[in-house]
Every structure is written in C-alpha cells, then in structure tokens.
C-alpha cells in the first residue's frame, strides 16, 4: 500500500477529530493509509455523515400512509400520488461553492439535485429554489445574485426542466454566506423505482458519464467549514457543470432502466466514487472490488485518493446484471455516453480499491456510512441571550406613522417584497408544458399531471427573520406557510423535504437554534400530517472575518408538495372582476413583530416572531380548501411578507384591478395593513355566491371579516386613495432590477 505517513496530525488536516482517528484505527485494526484516511475524512464530514444533526433529525415525523421510501433510505423522498405514480422530491444546499464561485456553484447545485431524482428512475418535472443574499447595495451581493441566477438558469434551461416556484430574500446576515437551496420534483411509475443498491456477486460495476478530474476534491469537507478570507483559495474544490451531459445522462438512464438489466444505480455527488460505492454496497449487504485504473480520467497523474474523492459532475454508478452488459451498453452507445466497467460486486462488506495493480485502500463499507460506523454526536446547546431580549418588544414603543401611503410605497419597492421577475424571467418556467401557473398565478407551483384529473402542487418557504427571532415558532411558521400556499391553490399538503442552513454546530447558541427549529418542524409537520421525507443539512454557514464569527440567519427551508385531486379547482391568487367582495379568513391581530415594516421601515431588529397559533392556522387552511372544493371563492392568497396591504396588491395586479377596503377600528392601522400575523388568507367572492359563502363561514366557526370590494383600478383604504394599481405595479415590477443594475 502507498506509504505517505499518516498521523493524528494528518487526520486533523483533513478535518477529522483525534477521537475519530482512533475510531478509524479500531475499525481497521491498524493505522489507515492516506487514501483510507481521505475516504473517512469525506465520508465522515458533516455534509456526508450528518454526525452533528442525525440525533435530532430522527425525532422528526417520517411515517405516513403515502410514504414509499422513508427518509434516509433512498436518494430522495418518495410519495405515492395515486394513478400508479410516485413523486420523488428533495431539496439540497450548494451554499459554500456559491460563496466563492456563484455561477458554477449554483449550476452544479441544480445538476446534483436532479441526479438525486433521476437516479431513482424518476423523470424530473419541476425545479424550485430558495435563495438568500446579503445587502443589495454591496457589489459582492450583486455579483453573487447575478452569478447564482445565471448559473441556475443556464443549467436548468439547457437540462430542460421548468422552475415552478421559489423565493429570494435579502438580509445583511447573508453578506458573506449566500444560501442557495435547489429542489427538484420528479415522477416515476410506482413499480419502476430504482434503488441505490449493489448486490449479486460478480455483477459488473459501471461508471457512466463524464470523465473524472481533479475538480471538487474535498468538496464535502469544504462544505463543512467556515467561509473565511482565504476561501477563494479553495476554488479547486468547486465542480464545473455540463447540462448537456446531464440531459443525455437522464435520457440514457431512463432507457437503461427499461432494459431491466439494472440492479441498482446511484449518482456521484458529494464525495464522488467513494460515496456511491460505499452507500450502494452497504445497502445491498455486499462489497466491491474496484480497479481505479479503469476509471476514465480527464487529467493525468491523479492519485488514488483524488480519483476516489473527485466530485466531477454528471457521473453515475450502475450495477448491472452479469450477462446483460450488451443491453446496457447499446443504450449508452446510442446516446454517445462514455462508460467503463470499473469493478464488480463481491461478497462480504469490504470495499477494495486497486490502482496500478496494487491494493491502495481496503475499508468496510458499513464503517463509512450514516447508520453504520459513522460517528454520531450529541452537541451541547444553550439559549442565546438575544432570544429573551427580542421578546421584550412592545408595539406601543413604535409610533404610528402619519403617512401610511408613504409606508405602502416604501414596502412595495422593498427588495424583499417587490417582484422577483428579474430573477425568474431568466429561468425557463414553461418547458414541459405542465406549468399551470403561467397564466393562472397561484401561491404555489402547480404542475399538470397530464392524462389524469390531478395536479401536483409545490412550494419552498422559510422566513429566516422569523426563525432568527424564535427558531421554534419561526420553523413552525415555515411549515405552516408552505402548507398555506399549497392550500390556497386548493390542494392538500402531502409531505416535506427540508434544507437546514445554520452556522457552526460546535457553537452552543447556534446549535440551540438548530434544535429549536427541529422541534418546531416536528410539531408543525405532525399537525399538517406532512411527514419529512429527507433533505439536507448545511452547517458552517458563517464567516470568520478578522477572527469574528458571523452566522447567517438560521434558515430551515421547507420544500413541500401537495396534491390537487381535481385540477378544475385550481385556484389563483388574482381578483377576477370588479364588484367581487373581499374577505379575510383568520383573525386580525394588533401585531407588527418581525414584520418587514418593523424591521426595515422602523429599523427595529429586535422583536419576537409574529403572532402564530398552529391550531388556528390549521383551521384557516382547512376551511379555505373546503371553500375551494365547494366553488365558493374566486381567488385565495395568503398574507405573508409585507402584510395584508401587499397581499391585496398582489391579488389586484394580475388583472389590473383595484380594491376598496375598510380597516378595523380595534387594531392599529399600521398593524392591520402591514403586520405579518400568521394564519390569514385573503379571498374574493362573486356576488352570486356570497350568501352561501357567509353561511358556510358562519357554520365553520373560523373567524372571518369583510374587507371591502374589488374596484376597476383605484386602491382606497378608509376612503383615502393609495393610488392606481398600474402605477404601484410599475414600482413593484421594476424596483429589484433597478437595485441590481445599480
């Protein structure tokens, strides 16, 4: 075996703790060589092993009658949606690469999450993304957002899957560390799901797709450390994407599956060949003998550990039934995809890697993986002092502005509220001819399941500011908002995937945020009956600048899917006609905590999460779904960022209509219009359904109130004109692009 000297110091350089080095020695019964140590360093990195999070992740509700693959067992969650179909979906972060190389970082993030979906045999049909950036007045932020959006667009547009929904949020806490979370949703016939498993002694192991180079080596380790002034030097850790290769890989794998010759398949993402070989072997209860000389390389002079750890993109590992090689190769040749047999499945659980006819690494597969030998830690946590401080906020300390029209205009033009069209128009949102929201905008993405009566509904949500203020309540709100968006289309929420973006888990106050967030997520997912099907943990989203650690706002992004059983009921957010009545379902609260209004207009950063009650929230959503099913409402849109005023404006703009409403004398007008209390949905009702609507609402016992009516074009509140919708729409549509273009 090669003999670069390995000591505890070498282990430390590769990001392993001394006690982890001891564990490795005890698994192997000897000191590992450098190749083996490199293998453990990536497989036991936070990114691959979940060692600091798994204990808490296991507390989340993961079971449900529609769940076909429990969290952690396959590359993505799998949910039964009827008609013989299953939906595979997952969200993943690519934060660290994007912080230093936004274009490639974002592009390969899209590539990676899609491979997770099609490695299961599913065809991706929709993409979503959730992005966080710092202050838009900084050149760095503008460089990051331009690169990230172009990266997502260029990759996804060529790959050919539409973006159906997403969110973009700006705050100074993301100045150094942007968050780039990409979600993919795919469809597969329930009985044709492919598993990431290696079994059957003697079956050949194929590497398929791009050649292997030195890109992305130690990417998983890179993603498991702080971003520093020197991070740009880690650029060789960043992979380069090729969407054309990914597209033909998708088509070819779909055809390979049809041959019936495939035993199992896994994509190569973080930790490359070593990750796929070990996870597939462990799952199949077998081992592998791999000859690294046979791996097609794009660079000369690669060492064994470099080949093992390379994160070159657009590669798959396939285990094929022995004797059926010709069937598989015919498909790969048709698509001009390069491939090589690099080894075979063996009995036992040992992974043996040979290079230049020498055994260069020999490790038990089970010792590498989560649930096997990978370490699991119980981390210390402590409530930070700010949490109680934030709760001391009192609305009466904030004077009510005299000019609320001015506040309205401030919020419409605010980057967290204004239209994100500068972003989403760079994405192909219509390819695949399944996007039902292009012409009927809704609170969530709606995908037409052609040939059925159904539509698949999806969203990503998280208000990082609420989670910062109160991680448990803020995360309950993130789940609730996702469910609310899905409910407003008429669909029933089904399941979630999560992307947990936090700072350094070794910081007890950061870890407290994580623990509280998981607790909140568990409670809310139980209530909405939306099990957690998997996802991704991204720690170390913090910068060490001049020795000071700054963590991002904790951001547990929720990706949720739902099912619209009758797509004729698909409900949009848009007001339909003047004269329709406008109602608020849910109760108005004298609350402005953590609102964009308080945070940005008044500049008050310290306040608790907005008003939230899980049971009330659940009832509001149930009632709105029922109103939709009974055809009693014309539109439904939730109240979220920017409060009721912004929601009404968003309802009004698509058809250039206005509204005339009256506020509630019991509540401060600023709180009524701009507060972000949760559990509220704006609906519009045509005169012909009004009696039935009111009868139903009264019987439902859910609070509701009359706001006013839809007008031709003017916006009036308490008889005061707030302007005409066309003028406000212009501000709303162009504010973000003006800021980005500087």
């Amino acid at each position, binding site marked *: 075996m090669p003999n670069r000297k390995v000591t505890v110091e070498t282990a430390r350089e590769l990001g392993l703790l001394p006690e982890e080095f001891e564990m490795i020695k005890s698994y192997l019964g000897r000191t590992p060589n450098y190749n083996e140590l490199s293998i453990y360093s990536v497989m036991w990195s936070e990114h691959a092993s979940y060692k600091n999070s798994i204990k808490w992740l296991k507390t989340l509700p993961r079971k449900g009658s529609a769940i076909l693959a429990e969290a952690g067992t396959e590359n993505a969650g799998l949910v039964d949606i009827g008609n013989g179909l299953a939906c595979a979906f997952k969200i993943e972060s690519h934060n660290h690469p994007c912080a230093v190389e936004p274009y490639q970082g974002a592009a390969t993030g899209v590539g990676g999450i899609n491979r997770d979906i099609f490695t299961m045999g599913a065809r991706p049909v929709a993409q979503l993304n959730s992005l966080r950036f710092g202050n838009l007045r900084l050149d760095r932020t503008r460089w990051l957002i331009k690169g990230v959006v172009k990266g997502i667009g260029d990759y996804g547009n060529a790959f*050919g899957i539409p973006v159906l929904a997403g969110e973009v949020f700006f705050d100074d806490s993301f100045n150094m560390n942007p968050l780039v979370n990409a979600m993919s949703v795919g469809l597969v016939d329930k009985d044709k799901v492919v598993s990431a498993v290696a079994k059957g002694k003697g079956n050949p192991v194929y590497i398929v797709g791009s050649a292997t180079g030195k890109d992305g080596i130690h990417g998983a380790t890179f993603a498991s450390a702080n971003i520093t002034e020197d991070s740009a030097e880690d650029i060789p850790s960043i992979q380069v994407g090729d*969407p*054309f290769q990914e*597209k033909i890989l998708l088509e070819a794998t779909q055809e390979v599956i049809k041959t019936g010759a495939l035993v199992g398949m896994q994509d190569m993402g973080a930790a490359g060949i070593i990750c796929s070989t070990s996870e597939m072997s462990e799952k199949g209860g077998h081992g592998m003998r791999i000859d690294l000389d046979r791996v097609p390389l794009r660079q000369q002079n690669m060492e064994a550990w470099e080949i093992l750890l390379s994160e070159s993109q657009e590669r798959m590992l396939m285990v094929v039934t022995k004797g059926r090689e010709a069937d598989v190769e015919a498909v790969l040749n048709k698509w001009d995809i390069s491939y090589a047999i690099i080894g075979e499945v063996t009995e036992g659980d040992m992974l043996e890697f040979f290079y230049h006819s020498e055994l260069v690494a020999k490790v038990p597969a089970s010792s590498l993986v989560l649930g096997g030998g990978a370490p699991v830690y119980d981390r210390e946590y402590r409530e930070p002092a700010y949490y109680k401080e934030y709760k001391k906020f009192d609305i009466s300390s904030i004077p009510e502005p005299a000019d609320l029209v001015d506040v309205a205009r401030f919020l419409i033009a605010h980057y967290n509220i204004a239209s994100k069209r500068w972003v989403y*128009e*760079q994405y192909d949102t219509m390819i695949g*001819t399944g996007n039902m929201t*292009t012409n009927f905008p809704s609170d969530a993405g709606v995908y*037409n399941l052609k040939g059925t009566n159904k539509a698949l509904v999806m969203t990503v949500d998280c208000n990082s500011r609420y989670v910062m203020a109160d991680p448990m309540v803020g995360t309950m709100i993130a789940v609730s908002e996702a469910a609310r968006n899905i409910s407003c289309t008429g669909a029933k929420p089904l399941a979630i995937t999560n992307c947990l973006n936090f700072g350094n888990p070794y910081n007890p106050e950061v870890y407290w945020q994580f623990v509280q967030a998981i607790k909140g997520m568990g409670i809310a997912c139980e209530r909405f009956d939306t099990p957690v099907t998997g996802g991704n943990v991204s720690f170390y989203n913090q910068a060490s600048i001049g020795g000071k650690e700054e963590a991002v706002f904790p951001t547990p992004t929720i990706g949720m899917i739902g099912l619209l059983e009758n797509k004729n009921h698909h409900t949009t957010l848009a007001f339909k006609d003047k004269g329709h009545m406008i109602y608020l379902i849910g109760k108005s609260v004298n609350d402005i905590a953590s609102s964009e209004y308080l945070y940005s207009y008044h500049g008050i950063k310290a306040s608790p999460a907005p008003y939230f009650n899980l049971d009330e929230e659940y009832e509001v959503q149930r009632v709105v779904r029922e109103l939709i099913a009974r055809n009693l409402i014309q539109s439904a849109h939730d109240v979220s960022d920017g409060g009721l005023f912004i929601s009404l404006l968003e309802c009004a703009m698509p058809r250039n209509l206005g509204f005339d409403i009256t506020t509630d004398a019991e509540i401060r007008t600023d709180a009524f219009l701009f507060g972000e209390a949760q559990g509220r949905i704006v609906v519009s009702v045509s005169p012909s359904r009004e009696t039935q609507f009111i009868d139903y609402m009264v019987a439902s016992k859910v609070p509701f109130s009359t706001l006013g009516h839809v007008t031709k074009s003017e916006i009036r509140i308490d008889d005061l004109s707030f302007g005409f919708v066309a003028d406000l729409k212009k501000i709303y549509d162009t504010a973000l692009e003006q800021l980005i273009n500087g």
Partner: protein
Amino acid sequence: MKFGVVVFPGSNCDQDTVYVLKEILEQEVVTLWHKETDFDENVDVIILPGGFSYGDYLRSGALAKFSPIMNRVIEFANNGGYVFGICNGFQILCESGLLPGALLHNINQKFICKNIYITPDSKTSALTKYLPRNRVLKIPIAHGEGRYYADKDTIAQMRINGQILFRYCDENGVVSESANPNGSVENIAGVCNERHNVFGMMPHPERSSDDELGNTDGRLIFESLLSYLRDLSKKS
C-alpha cells in the same frame, strides 16, 4: 397529416411538440433521431423543436447543421418539403442557410422566459394564412439567443416577398420598441424562406396549445398550418 419531429440529443421541447401534435391536434407523428440519414417520404412537415441540440456551447445550432438528419432535412426542404423550426429549430435553420438572417444574443445578454405578444405580418404563409384577423397572439418565449438580425437589403427583400411572419407587439397589437423583448431587428419574431416552405419562429406555440394551461393562442398557428396543407392536398 404526418409530422416528423427531429430529436437531437439536447432537444428538450421535442416531447412537448409531439404531445401537442398527437394528443391535442390528433395528427400522426414520428420522431427522427439525429443520427438517422433518411426518413419516410410521406412526412408532410418536419419540425425542428426547441432545446440545445448538441449543448450549443459554441453557438446555438452551429453544430446541428452537420448532423446526418440535417443533410436529409435540407434535401427535403430544397425539394419543396415543409420544414418548421421553433426556437432552437429556428436557430438551426438559419445556421443551415435554409432561412435568411441569424439569431444573436438577446440585447440584455440574459435568457428571457415570459409570455409575449406577436402579430402576423405576412398574411399568406402557411403559418399565418388562417389566423383569426386583427388578433394578437400571446405566446411564450424562452431563449438566450433570439435577437433576429439580417442586413437592411435582406430585410427589404424579405418584406417584398412576404417572408416576415411575425413581429413582437404589445397586447394591443402595437409594434414598438418597448414590446421588443430581445432587440430583434424590426421586432421580427418569425420568418420564412423565399419559397415559403421553410419557417422559423422564436416564440413557442407548443407551449400555448393546451386548454389546461389557460392559453391556446399557439394552437392557432398549428391549425393554420394544417388548414393550409389540407388546401394543398385538395388542389393536387
């Protein structure tokens, strides 16, 4: 009618086009793999769909013109066969010399995907002859290289020959600079060749042909083409 939809490895609107032709317009459709050198003589129309033919890292459509199937498509067009390129297909037809002009990077240097409006210019071509009169069409675009360009003399000639099929306009049909999404010369969104048997357009009619998506303006273009071809077959 029988349609042949060409499939390059990076085509990604091929199945959308097949779906519209087969399921919505109930036409016969065959797919033609890029490595094939021949296809059935009875194909009435060849469609080059949208996508990124061979990755298009060089220039959209620059490699596709050398593919085996394109040799046959060019021959088919030269013999008077009907060929219709959408988006990437339009780019390939310009690169192949079957259509005049070229498609440059959008003037804002960004990919743009949104609904836009177009108005027919020539009223005699297969794609426009049977469109409802005085009605603009709402059809989505999705491209990074869609800025149509041809020199002044070529454009003048095309105008005389009725080769300008569609121009970008606003929702009231006004052809203006603000309604031009990508900087195309004279707001040109679609053209045909001199012989009026090869057509190309950047907007995607196949994306606005399904009732379930709430916009069927694109279907009108396919229907015009079908009516035109039926007329022809009646005459012959």
